[in-house]
């Protein structure tokens, strides 16, 4: 199991795939002021919401590389032949994916909030929200990656599948980042995230198994 998680980390970083989400996140933070204008109070009010949208869209980027390459190369078959359950494979992928997705995004949030001139308390709430919400986003990415593995064009379909399911994370995440957010927002965000993490190994595992026949 630990060997599989380490392999996921190696694949994420050697391929450079792990760099894409934080770079995309920063790019949105750079472009957003161009779109709405450099009005500081406006940016302070809307910036955190824009960053949450960026996090959501950044979660789409790894869909192509999480499951499909392993399916096409026969790695998933070789794991199954060894009696390793698809659920266990999915869990290892989830763990490895979150480590190369959540923390880099949280790190990228530091310069991103500076670019948008967000106040320090907003940054703290955004980081807390990302800590609680990125496991749920990683879980959704994995489920969608497993569902779309083997299809010829995944891009648009992945977006259509993932984004609606990510609505609760967006609502509670952006709600938490807003000024004077109730403490309950953090708990609801964590609850949604936990639920997705709990479902993901079974949903992705079943999808991998179904994709074999």
């Amino acid at each position, binding site marked *: 199991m630990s*060997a599989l998680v380490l*392999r996921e980390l*190696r*694949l994420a970083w*050697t*391929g450079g795939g792990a760099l894409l989400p934080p770079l995309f996140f920063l790019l949105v933070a750079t472009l957003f002021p161009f779109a709405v204008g450099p009005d500081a109070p406006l940016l302070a009010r809307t910036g955190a919401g824009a960053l949450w949208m960026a996090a959501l869209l950044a979660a789409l980027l790894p869909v192509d590389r999480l499951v499909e390459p392993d399916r096409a*190369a*026969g*790695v998933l*078959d*070789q*794991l*199954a*032949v*060894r*009696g*390793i359950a698809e659920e266990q494979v999915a869990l290892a992928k989830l763990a490895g994916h979150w480590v190369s997705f959540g923390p880099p995004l949280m790190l990228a949030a530091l310069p991103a909030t500076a670019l948008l001139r967000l106040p320090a308390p907003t940054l703290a709430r955004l980081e807390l929200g990302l800590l609680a919400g990125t496991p749920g986003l990683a879980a959704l990415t994995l489920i969608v990656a497993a569902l779309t593995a083997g299809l010829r064009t995944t891009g648009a379909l992945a977006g259509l599948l993932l984004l609606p399911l990510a609505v609760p994370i967006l609502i509670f995440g952006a709600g938490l980042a807003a000024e004077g957010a109730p403490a309950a927002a953090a708990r609801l965000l964590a609850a949604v995230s936990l639920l997705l993490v709990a479902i993901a190994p079974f949903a992705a595992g079943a999808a991998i198994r179904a994709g*074999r*026949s």
Partner: protein
Amino acid sequence: MSAAPLLRLEGVACRRGGRLLFEGLDLQLGRGETALVSGPNGAGKSSLIRLAAGLLEAAAGKVERPGPVALADEFLALDTKIRLAGALALWARLDGGEAGRGMAAMGLDGLADVPVRMLSTGQRKRAVLARLVASAAPLWLLDEPANGLDAEGQACLAKAAAAHLADGGAILVASHQPIGLEAGVELRLG
């Protein structure tokens, strides 16, 4: 030799895409035995191998595999960005085997530090077989193992297979070319 078979198929039928490939297939493979599956393209040779590996559900009948299995098919299933020894070591760790043994058996020692993506077709095939040799699983499932292998590679395979059988292993091989093994059982599909 021993009474307990390593693979037992009983009245197995295989249906792919609504088409019945074969049915009523019986096969028993004990220690030291080899079964050769032959037949024209599309007869279901690969499907039979995948059935035996547990990757496909039989449409009817029973498939029993009491012990671990090693599969060598058309897929490389090795990480292409890292060196060959590292890529094989990942699987050897999962199998509790020894990657070096497989590489030595398939004549890959000189390529240990070469990234997998640089390997030729025949070298990749050898790497797939090296994982099989290293796994120490008693039952080998081979799908066209000689495809892409040169004469030396085929000799390595024949030698490794003979050693595996002498060790009390069993081999189910689907191939339309001879791989230098005496097959105790011959199965013709289609």
